[in-house]
């Protein structure tokens, strides 16, 4: 993995990876359910199929977040140093980015699971 993803990612954008995965997962869940319920039988699926598909998507999303979390953890030096990471150095800036990204991965992980909970209980399109 190290060969594919360089250790030095010099950008602020990585911070938003995990929340973006959450957003994508959320959007797909919502749109898929909305289209399914508005046009029953769309693409020949049943509701159970839809739940399994979205469940699978949830696992993929969680895997992505875990991967992003691992990279963030690595950027954070595997927790070698404690916060606050407030020294005026490039290293501390990177540690801060790693730690903040890791926290966001955690939040996104929980949020994706929350989004998936309704799939357990709701079996039909009733309003």
């Amino acid at each position, binding site marked *: 993995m190290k060969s594919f993803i360089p250790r030095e990612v*010099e*950008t*602020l954008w990585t*911070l*938003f990876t995990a*929340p*973006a995965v*959450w*957003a994508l997962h*959320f959007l797909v*869940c*919502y749109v898929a*359910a*909305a*289209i399914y*319920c*508005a*046009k029953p039988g769309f693409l020949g699926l049943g509701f159970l199929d839809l739940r399994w598909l979205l469940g699978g998507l949830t696992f993929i999303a969680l895997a992505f977040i875990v991967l992003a979390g691992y990279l963030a953890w690595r950027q954070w030096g595997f927790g070698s140093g404690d*916060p*606050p*990471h*407030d020294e*005026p150095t*490039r290293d*501390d*800036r990177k*540690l*801060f*980015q790693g*730690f*903040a990204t890791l*926290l*966001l991965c955690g*939040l*996104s992980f*929980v*949020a994706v699971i*929350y*989004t998936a*909970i*309704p*799939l357990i*209980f*709701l079996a039909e*399109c*009733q*309003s």
Partner: protein
Amino acid sequence: MTGKLGPLLPQDQREAQEKRLRDVWETPSGWRYWTSVNNSEIGLWYGCTAFIFMLFAGVLALLIRLQLAVPDNTFLSANFFNQAFTLHGTVMMFLFAVPIFEAVAIFLLPSMLGARELPFPRLSAFGFWSFAIGGVFVCGSIFFGAAPNSGWFMYPPLATDKEQTGIGADIWLLGLSFIEVASIAAAVELIVGIMKCRAPGMRVNMMPLFAWYLLIVAGMILFAFPPLIAGDLLFEMQRMFDWPFFDAERGGDPLLWQHLFWIFGHPEVYIIFLPAIALMAMIVPTFSQRPIVGYSWIVLAAVGTGFLSFGLWVHHMFTTGLPQISLAFFSAASEAVVIPTGVQIFVFIATMLAGRVIFSVPMLFGAGALAIFIIGGLTGVMVALVPFDWQAHDTYFVVAHLHYVLIGGMLFPVTAGIYYFYPFFNGKKLSDAWGKIAFWLMFVGFNVAFFPMHFAGLRGMPRRVFTYPAEMGWDWFNLISTVGAFVFAAGFLIVVADVVRPKTRQAPAKPNPWNAGTMEWLNQHEESWGIRSIPIIKSRYPLWDQPDLRKNIEDGRYYLPDAETGHRETLVTSVLDGAPQQVLRVGGSSYVTMIAAFLLGGVFIALTYEWWWTTIICAIGTLIAILYWLWTGTAQIPEAEMRDAGLGERFPLYVSGPASVGWWAMFITMVGDGTAFASLIFGYFFYWTIHDDFTGGQVGPGWQWPLAAAALFVIAWGCMLLARFANTRNLASTMRLSIAVSLLLTIAGIAAGLMGPYQHAMEPTLHVYPATVWILAIWTSTHGAVALIMQLYCLARSYAGYLTADYDQDLCNVVLYWHFMVFTAVVTYLTIGLFPELR
């Protein structure tokens, strides 16, 4: 920690420097004062205007409370009551809560970041004037009985009914669209300012938390406001030209408006809440006398809230009959957003636990904010649960909930901020004694007013009722609420009185009266240059950790201590590490911003009354004003390539492409524009989902013309890329030729795009399908027309010698626009051309 430091110049040289700085940054006097663009002036006007609107809306609230004090009251007529509550909500949200944060940000951010100015001061001024004009227009309507009267949410088909809503709905739609322009302008200003204008050495791990919050909020504005602008567009097309977007009989659907409105409306709550909590994040460390505990956690909270808040909008639509599974997704996200919100509160508590707390008036308001906001948050957890919301929705329970959230999460922290930052603004403190009285009146009054509403609501009292029968048992609740509301208002009046009372005899406070650690307390409020010299930052709390910082700054021993070039200049630094990159020249006092804002205001106001000629004249005037502004104020070729910035370092005065602030401004604006476009595309597919045959049996635009249009725009875009390439090779004539060819192709593309629906005689008033096709084609064509103007501008700049191989900002920015343009065109024409064939 000492670091780099310039020489200490003799007194007379320093005074000469100061005089030059003062002259360059001088605020005009007399009536030309209003042409000022200084962030301290604009921030002040912005804040005062927002507060005046707030007091106005507060008076409306008191009228509402008087009417509801007793059952079967006849104090207000039903119609006036409906106007009053509509305007109360509208003004508080659009003219107070959002603008006040823009005001505070414009006012404080440069000082916090150690910058002289934000990168686009004239844009701030333009935003302020737009806001003020639009606000007066919207508020003034009630004095003519013409205020909007269908709720701040403007649900069609009630609000699209011209007979029942009169001109009020148009005033709402157009007045607020105009104000949204100001918000997006502020978002551009803040994002670029925070990313690129921090003091050297202020890495992202050292930014003041206020800046982190504002960065996220500005980003949220870019994605939250444009859907409402798109919705406003559809809405006005229905009201003015009878295009049936929300008319169920002709294939439209009232729910589309609810989606677009709440995609804006819910993030807006967090756009209001985060900046206020950002103030708390500055206040709490100061009064705990230690750095914040959990800086990264705050970043987590801000970013997390920013994202999650876009997954909540349907919780305003839990009773519209959407499938339960959809509701449940949004319920889950609504609960998830509690986590980052809770983290912020615990960060404050942790910071206080680890510090030695001084309990002053700002902290008192902070404590009140917390006590109130947590109740609002807990009721928020309740209403986010779908089954409970089925009962609570649209009742006084929700009225109580939202006021607990907004007053606890916004008004109390802002009041804390007023007490905290007042010395920053004029060097004197507000009265402690009056502050405590005001606090207790506000705190007690608020709870007396709003706590009973929870029970009135669950006892069955719906929102927005102008009267209620006596036998329902709501009378006591309402009477208590009314009394509380007046106590609350009295408390706030004390704050206002304390702020405006003359303080000439009061002794000035110390320069850093609270012993705060952040940069803004270096401010010399009597000077308008922002900061005497731009320091190198080495701590999150430089005033605590960098000894002699104030003295060295005021002695001019850091960057840009002089204004010998006679321009307003500030330093641009890199995004992550705050390494200095450029000396940026910013615009000074000017009429053009005000004139442009007034003319644009004219466009919107004339549209309201459907005075077409005035609209056209004002629109042309606005265009000319903006072109003049750009021509004379942006991408100026400097007299020298490099500028000595002090400390023996030299930086370029002119950069282009992604290194320049202008490029980022264009990028950010176009992201917002792209969001509005995405909302329209969402509308197209929304109608597809709700109908078996979304074309309603109407003819489409065919695939030939749309595909031709898409191809023409792609080739035109290619020509623009070629033009930029030729320019870097110093091939001026090739560049001009490419632009000219691209210009012709664009004209052809616009024509081809409109030909599809035109040739198939699509009649937009018959059914929503032709209306959506037309609106997409018109949207893209309008963007094509803007592209044309930009191409002509580039040609003119090139012939005038302002656009050369080395000085190519204009061309870079226009090519960036073209990236978005070609995306818009391709998506539009593939959608309207191919989707009906494919389905």
